[in-house]
């Protein structure tokens, strides 16, 4: 309708200076979020702000290792975020499993399942490192290189295949239905006759 390309620099500036984080502590890195938000580091200076709802969030901070059980929720939450959305993987574990490289319940390469724009190494990365990661993310947004959401759209089949391989087909419905029998108060044992 309107050619908005003229305003793109403004939009990119707004996007980079106003990153709202999904509040989801996926792992132990969550412990460094409060220091980041409080007076010592204060990431609100850069417009970064934790937000409870994924619908209005831009930045997904994967704080630490990811178990398959959490990854299901991460994927659901990630798909709920509106484009453009960015993922910042925090710590060694999402990169290659980190200290849990041989653990049966920790994801080894997060970027097989959702696109990761910036990864911070370290266990656990210091708040300064996270700030640096956020700065890097800002640079990438400005230059347009933070295109994880585009990659996810374009290569959805591939990501979907990886997810299904890990969790099995129809994992959403299966996971959802898991609790139904236990939520009901009335359940009858079927007797064999």
């Amino acid at each position, binding site marked *: 309708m309107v050619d908005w390309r003229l305003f793109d620099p403004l939009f990119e500036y*707004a*996007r980079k200076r106003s990153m709202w984080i999904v509040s989801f502590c996926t792992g132990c890195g969550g412990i460094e979020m409060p220091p980041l938000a409080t007076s010592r580091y*204060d990431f609100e200076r850069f417009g970064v702000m934790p937000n409870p*709802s994924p619908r209005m969030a831009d930045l997904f901070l994967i704080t630490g290792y990811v178990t398959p059980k959490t990854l299901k929720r991460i994927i659901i939450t990630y798909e709920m975020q509106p484009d453009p959305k960015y993922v910042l993987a925090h710590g060694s574990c999402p990169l290659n499993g980190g200290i849990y490289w041989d653990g049966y319940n920790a994801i080894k390469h997060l970027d097989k399942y959702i696109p990761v724009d910036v990864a911070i190494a370290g266990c656990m990365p210091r708040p300064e490192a996270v700030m640096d990661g956020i700065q890097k993310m800002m640079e990438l947004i400005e230059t347009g290189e933070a295109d994880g959401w585009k990659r996810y759209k374009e290569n959805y089949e591939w990501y979907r295949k990886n997810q299904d391989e890990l969790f099995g087909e129809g994992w959403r419905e299966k996971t959802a239905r898991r609790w139904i029998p236990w939520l009901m108060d009335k359940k009858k044992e079927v007797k064999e006759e």
Partner: protein
Amino acid sequence: MMETALKALFILLYATFVGFMFMGIIRIVTARIHRRVGPPIYQPILDTIKLLSKKSNITHGVIYDFGVLYALGATILAIMFIPLGNIGVLRAYGDLILITFLLEIPMLGIMFAAMSSGNPYAGIGAQRALLTMLAIQVPLGFAIVALAEFYGTFSTYEIVMAQQVSGWSIAHLPLLLAAIAYDLVLQAMFGKEPFDIMIAPGEISLGPMVEFGGKHMGILQIQHAIALFAETLFFSNIFLGGAVVTTFASPVLNTIASLAILLVKQIAVLLVATFMGAIFPRFTIDQAAKFYWKWPTIIAALGAILASL
């Protein structure tokens, strides 16, 4: 006609801009209380631009879209009725009761939109929002009654003019009581602790707002800015004397001066709310209802009765 349109446009732009600044001020002041630096003052504008420039949006149906539009539309409507210094588009019709209603109905639009998403958190948020509204309505009603009975008129503009003669409303005991009650009500209108029950991020993840994202949330940010401006302006007008400057010869200077005076008063109202919000925990909804039905109601009713004598 042209002049009215220009005035309306000016009010709209001014209210939006100042409203955003108010949002920024709240965030900065809160940050300073937390001993942080805080975001730049124009941060809410950036947030809104970002939200509006999202490249994908979701909807849950027509009402989901319309409710949001209705909320902004009704807020724009409300701001036109409140006298802004010397400028006024519909201030002749700026009836106390009408404005009180108009300041409430944007929330109805938001509730409609939120509920149509079918999210249980939004449902709980709507429940809490409405009960908060029910709770504040009693002291609010008494405060408005007190004003109307004290001044014998319902016109906001006339109340402002009357205050130029008889001094600020809060200089009179009945209206001081009403102002105290109204200020407590304002705390809930702004959604500040201890009455931020409706959004309660730690409990129900922003409640009604939980499903809004992208441009819907952007529109609601604009709505919030204007509503913030309108609520503080209304309070400054009816209790803090408003501003009608006639000392200068030039009408432009008079307008600027009165806008400046109003701005100071509005910021004062805002800061009181922010300070109160920073030091109190949040009530639960039934506690809040009981609280509002007790002290603020008694204070406001006393004010109303005194005013009617």
